[in-house]
């Protein structure tokens, strides 16, 4: 469990990359995880060739949700919208590089949900997990 809080995770949490609002964003999406109050807003600047020129996020919440958002934004910049489609749940969890306990998967995937929401709306969002672990 302590493995979840590796140094780089805490570093991304305390010094998030691409943090802040993005002036001139072409796409934004805000989402929350009502269970714990995590919030992420994703801002994309997409050019005429459907390439993500810039990305930023704002948010607050647990280390897992914020670090995951920070790591995700690093990956997105320069990709085409089409390439973003290939980023899925497994990819994000793998990229985080830690074993996220079942109850925290929702936190880890909030940024992906916000990313998909900003790019296409939630039609591309299959849900955090196949089994429901989040209860109030």
């Amino acid at each position: 469990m302590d493995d979840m809080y590796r140094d780089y995770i805490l570093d991304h949490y305390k010094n998030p990359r691409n943090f802040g609002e993005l002036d001139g964003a072409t796409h934004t999406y805000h989402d929350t995880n009502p269970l714990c109050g995590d919030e992420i807003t994703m801002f994309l600047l997409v050019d005429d060739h459907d390439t993500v020129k810039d990305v930023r996020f704002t948010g607050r919440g647990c280390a897992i949700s914020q670090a995951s958002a920070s790591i995700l934004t690093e990956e997105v910049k320069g990709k085409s919208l089409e390439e973003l489609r290939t980023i899925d749940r497994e990819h994000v969890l793998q990229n985080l590089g830690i074993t996220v306990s079942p109850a925290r998967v929702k936190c880890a995937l909030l940024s992906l949900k916000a990313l998909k929401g900003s790019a296409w709306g939630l039609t591309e969002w299959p849900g955090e997990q196949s089994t429901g672990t989040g209860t109030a």
Partner: protein
Amino acid sequence: MTSMLPRTEVATLDVRTIRADFPVLSRKTASGKTVVYLDNAATSQKPRQVLDAMRTVYEEHNANIHRGVYEFSERTTAAFEGARERVARFINAPEPREVIFVRNATEGVNLVAYAWGRDNIKSGDRIVTSVLEHHSNFVPWQQLAAETGATIAVVGIDEDGRLDRDQLRAELRKGAKLLALTHTSNGLGTINPVREIVAEAKASGATVLVDAAQSVPHLPVDVADIGCDFLVFSGHKMLAPPGSGVVWGRASLLLKMRPFLYGGDMISRVAIDTTTWNELPWKFEAGTSAYVDAIGLGAAVDYLQGVGLEAIHRHELALTGYLLPKLLATDGVVVYGPKDLADRVGVVSFNIEGIHPHDVATIFDSEGVCVRAGHHCNQPLMNRLGTAATTRASFYLYNTFEECDALIAAIGTAKRVFKI
């Protein structure tokens, strides 16, 4: 209990003996830690006595209640109705038929919101509630108001999490059809002085529902003394299984109310175009009740009465009195709710600056310490406190001072992991 404890705190309960009744408390986590279970406001653990009572039904005389004319059915029915009588005595209900078995407190509030609310709340009526309410005692009224055109007034709290009595009085003076109020707060541990408040509300003509989900398990609760009209609670928070919940209502009101759910068991006679309802309490118990769970609740009531609710309350206060000063003295810890022991129960909400409660709970978990992190189904309260979530430790009769120490140690671990 260790010898380091202040003497006055030691003798409240024979916790060692009590713990021996709860098999789950001696389990270890997957990583080999002894479980420190401090999430009792969410649900309680179950003693052997309750498990045995339920197993006895299944192994010795299980049959559907109220239906069979054979011995097993009669025995099970007697056990079920016996549980009702125990619960009635436990909360000092004037009559057992005023005790309705439901699944949980939430269903209890909904029962009242439908079966009483739909006939008694009209457009323009006012419903008064508080910012301390669990969503269970808030959303049903919010929705009833939206459906009927009634309005909702939400009474606030002071800095220590105590209900704003002046605001409540002012709201009652404006006229209220219903006051729906929690007895004790699941988020902060505040005890509302419901006896005084109910007297004021009744004097102003309001009907009063008390959410006792967090009080009946931990304090002596006497519906006749409180003077309310409805009171709801959940068995699973008081050593009984999930699936056992109670609505207590005044017979005079229950008799006039329409049923909540329709079907079998709740009828007296069914013709093709009309049906007459069964008597109390069965009018409100449609379909096969969770009778084994209710029997478990009866056994839980016996267990709690055997220990004594006063003693349980004192024990939990002693634990709170031990933990609170340690928390308040810990750098970076913010405590929500009353900081002293007056009018509170053993629910302690806090945050560690710089660490989100979910991360706190995850790290605590690695030490075997089970606490709740989140909004505790208290979002209006969290907004009032200016936080999205808190970490909450909540005690019960089996908790120990050592477990408080384990929690304090886990705070140290969390700060180390986060380099704070």
